[in-house]
Structure formats: structure tokens, C-alpha cells
């Protein structure tokens, strides 16, 4: 235990990849990367690489699954077979089913589903390369893809994990920190409203550490949110430049 705690921080107090305790990894986001999907996003977050496609709102088949008063959201979060250390079988595992459910529930919170009775909004996420924090990155990418598809939203869902390493709360765990550290705590929220849509943890935390982690996560999410806004605005700016027919209805 002692060995673990110290080995993940260097003598200068920095993390193994050179980051400060509260420093995010580099993040890039690109929307409209796919021609066939209604909306899409390619996001890199450290060594994570995530692609997300959105279809809809569209008619739901089979029809008996449809809701007469609103659209449903279907989410598939998958790990590519080669995205992890040991090759994963192509069949989804329990972890992928659980995260698909949690991502779906988070997205539910910002979608105007009642505007699309009997419809479905389908969100397909594939983690192409995994390096810790994939569910938060996936949610961040999914929001951009939903915006890219022109689906009206109350706000974006933005995620960022915090965790505990060498008895310290740190921001945005890498794969190694997640595996060898003392705990992982993914958080996702609508940053503008302060509504938290996802909160999990595993590991060992005191109540005070959880509170500190939550506060750190919210601050980091604020930073990620800025990038997210830029990525979506970039597309509109580009379109404006080309078509000259859109105003600034986007906040």
C-alpha cells in the first residue's frame, strides 16, 4: 500500500506523466467527423480516443417500444477489442451494459424528449483507445454529437473523473492511476445549472475526501465545458463562414 501511494507521485510532487495534482490531460474535440451519422464527435483525452455517432430523432422500431408522449434515448457504449491491455471479446460485457445505462440516464437529463413523441435518439459510442476516464469522456463527446445532430438540449453534459492517489485527491486519473491508485470517482453534470447527472466511486475515501473530490471535479468540468462549447461553436462559425445564413441563436 505504502509503495503504491508513493510510486504514483514523483519527488517533485508531480504525477508520473508530469501533471500537477489538479491538471487535466490534453483534450481535443472535433464534431461532424462522420458523413453518415446525423451528428458525430471524435474526442481525444490524454490517450483516450472516442468516437460517437448520433442518429435521430427518428422513428422507433419495433413500435411497441415507443412512448406516445416522448422520445426514448438508446445508448451503446462499447470498448473496441484492441482498446484495452488484454484483447476484449467483441461481445459486450457487464461493465459496458452498466455504463451504457448510466450514460443514457445522464443524457436524458438535458434532452427535450417530449418534443419527439414515438421517436428515438440513438447514441453509439466506441472507445477506440482507452486510458482511464472513458465514461466521462464518452459523455462529453456524446453531448457534442447531439448538438452536432441539431437536437435541442437544455445544456451539455460534461464529465471528468477525480480520484485518490498517494492519499491525495487528484483530477483526471490516467489508466495507471486508476489501476494502482486508491480510488476513482467519475462525475458528470450540466455545468451551467450545477445539476450532477453521474456520480460513482470505487476505492477508499473518507467523507471529506468525497466532498473535496466533488468540488475538484466540478471545477475541472468547468474547464472541459469551455472546450466543449468551443468545439460546437467552431462548427457554427464554419457554417456561418460558408453559408452566411445562421444568426447567433447559439448562446
Amino acid at each position, binding site marked *: 500500500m505504502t509503495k503504491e501511494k508513493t510510486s504514483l507521485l514523483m519527488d517533485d510532487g508531480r504525477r508520473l506523466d508530469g501533471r500537477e495534482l489538479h491538471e487535466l490531460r490534453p483534450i481535443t474535440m472535433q464534431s461532424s467527423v462522420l458523413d453518415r451519422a446525423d451528428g458525430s464527435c471524435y474526442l481525444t483525452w490524454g490517450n483516450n480516443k472516442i468516437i460517437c455517432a448520433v442518429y435521430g430523432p427518428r422513428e422507433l422500431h419495433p413500435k411497441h417500444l415507443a412512448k406516445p408522449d416522448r422520445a426514448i434515448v438508446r445508448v451503446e457504449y462499447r470498448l473496441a477489442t484492441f482498446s484495452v491491455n488484454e484483447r476484449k471479446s467483441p461481445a459486450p460485457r457487464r461493465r459496458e451494459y*452498466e455504463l451504457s445505462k448510466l450514460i443514457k440516464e445522464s443524457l436524458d*437529463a438535458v434532452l427535450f424528449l417530449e418534443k419527439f413523441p414515438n421517436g428515438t435518439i440513438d447514441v453509439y459510442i466506441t472507445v477506440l483507445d482507452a486510458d482511464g476516464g472513458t465514461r466521462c469522456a464518452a459523455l462529453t463527446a456524446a453531448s457534442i454529437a447531439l448538438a452536432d445532430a441539431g437536437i435541442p438540449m437544455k445544456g451539455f453534459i460534461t464529465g471528468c473523473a477525480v480520484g485518490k492517489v498517494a492519499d491525495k485527491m487528484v483530477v483526471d486519473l490516467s489508466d495507471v492511476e486508476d489501476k494502482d491508485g486508491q480510488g476513482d470517482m467519475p462525475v458528470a453534470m450540466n455545468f451551467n445549472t450545477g445539476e*450532477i447527472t453521474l456520480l*460513482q*466511486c470505487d476505492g477508499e*475515501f*473518507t467523507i471529506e475526501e468525497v466532498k473535496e473530490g*466533488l*468540488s475538484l471535479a466540478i471545477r475541472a468540468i468547468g474547464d472541459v465545458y469551455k472546450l466543449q462549447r468551443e468545439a460546437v461553436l467552431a462548427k457554427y462559425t464554419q457554417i456561418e463562414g460558408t453559408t452566411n445564413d445562421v444568426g447567433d441563436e447559439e448562446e
Partner: protein
Amino acid sequence: MRSEEIVGVLEKQYITKLLEKGKRADGRKFLEGRPVQIIPNVIKKAEGSAMVKWGETVILAGVKAQLGSPFPDTPNDGVITVNAEISPISSPTNESGPPGPRTVELARVVDRGIRESKIMPMKDPKLCVIPGKKVWIIFIDVYILDDGGNLIDAAALGAMAALANTRLRKVVINEDLEEVTLLEETEPLPRNGSVASLTFAKINDSIFYDPNLLEDRGKEARFSFAMTDKGIICSMQKGESGVFTEEEFTTILDQGATLVAPLLEKIEECSQFPEMNEMYQFDF
């Protein structure tokens, strides 16, 4: 006894109205749990077991152990795995078939609560019999028999209580250090401490502990966390499409120590009564 109905709009309005006045449909206070009974050691064929009656919810947890190979990346650790079945027995709306997302989430939340609490000393020679070759594989299976709300806390309590009365067969390691012989004699599963789960639900702006079935079906959001006897939070899980604020989470977490104490006490009682018990003989 009559057919179960899905909580409709009217029922949800009714619950919501009450909650706004600070009341719950079954008369409980917001931080009051339902009566909980554990009957340990009810399954003869299992290495450990417990039936839990948590309010109207009934679950049965059983532990089976078998010697097997460790995972390649943890060659010196025993293996634990939690599986859940929300049986069609438990409710007219629960269907049979392969586990759906709700069942998978239940199993994984219970699994993480136990695994991350570190109460199972996986490297103990009693669990890791021959490092790299033979370890105990501990299967915890939880069956939901009557779905009366708050399955997570009931399932987590049953799983923990079943572990508390689990006994493994003693083993003798053969000379070649490759194979083991199982003896008839048993000994308790090693265990360092205990853990229990606490679940809160939110309807409108009301947050309350231990939702019953109506509250469970009407809830907008759910928050569960597992706390050990050392006061450590080892697992959290926010669920459903509703949201919480940062303040709401911290307020909930501050209730943890008080609410978890009676549950942990019950678990310890279980480990003291290892003789075979009879289920379904109790009444509140």
C-alpha cells in the same frame, strides 16, 4: 393478494404531495428505514447464505466456493464475483431471460461495495491456496424474490450476511505444490470488517432514505453508497435520469455513519449463528 400495478401518474402525484408536506406514504420519516430481518445460513447446499426481509422486499443470497485458477493479472488473489437475478417471481413486471441493464447494474453495485471495501483478504493463504495456481473462486448469487423497493441495499446486505456465515473446506496442499486435497472439515471465510449500502431516492426536491416500492417506481433519481465499519466510503452510484446538486450529495453523505451502524450490527449478529435456520417463518 392481487396483481401489481405500475405506479401511475396519480400515484406519483399522491406521493409527491405527501413528500412536499414532509410525509411519506407509509408514515416513515425521511431518514427512517424499514424494518430489516436477516435469517442467516438457510441453504444447506450453499457454503454461506442469508435471506433478507427488508420492508416488503425479500432477497436470498447464497455463496458457493470452488477451487480454480486465479486471473493472470492477479495470480496471488482469490476471486470474488457477484451475480444478481431479479427473478420473475419478484414482481409481475420483472421478466425472465438474460440479465437486463437494471440487473447488471444491481449486481455490479453490490460487487463493487464488497470488492472495494477490502474486507475480503484476497491474498490470505486461506483464499489464495497455491499462488498462481489454485485459489478459491467465491460466487455470491443474489436472488430477488419479492420486489418491494430498494433492491440495492437489501441485496448488498444479503450478500454481506451470506459471506459472514460462509465456511470453506480446509485444504491440504500436496507435496508437488501443484494440487490440493479438500478435507471435509470447514473453517470460516476470512474477513476484515464489514460493509453496508445506503440508498436515497429523490422525488421533486425531496430526498429520503430507503424507498419503498411506490417511491422506488416514482423516483427521479437514486443515490447509493457503501460504507465500511471504518467509516470509509468504498462505492457510490447515482442512478436514473434525475439530478442531484453538490449540496444534496454532501447532505446525504453526512447521514452515512448514523444509518449504516444498525446494518453493520445485524451483519455481525449473523456470523454468530452459523447453524441452519428456517426462512419464511418470521413476521413483523
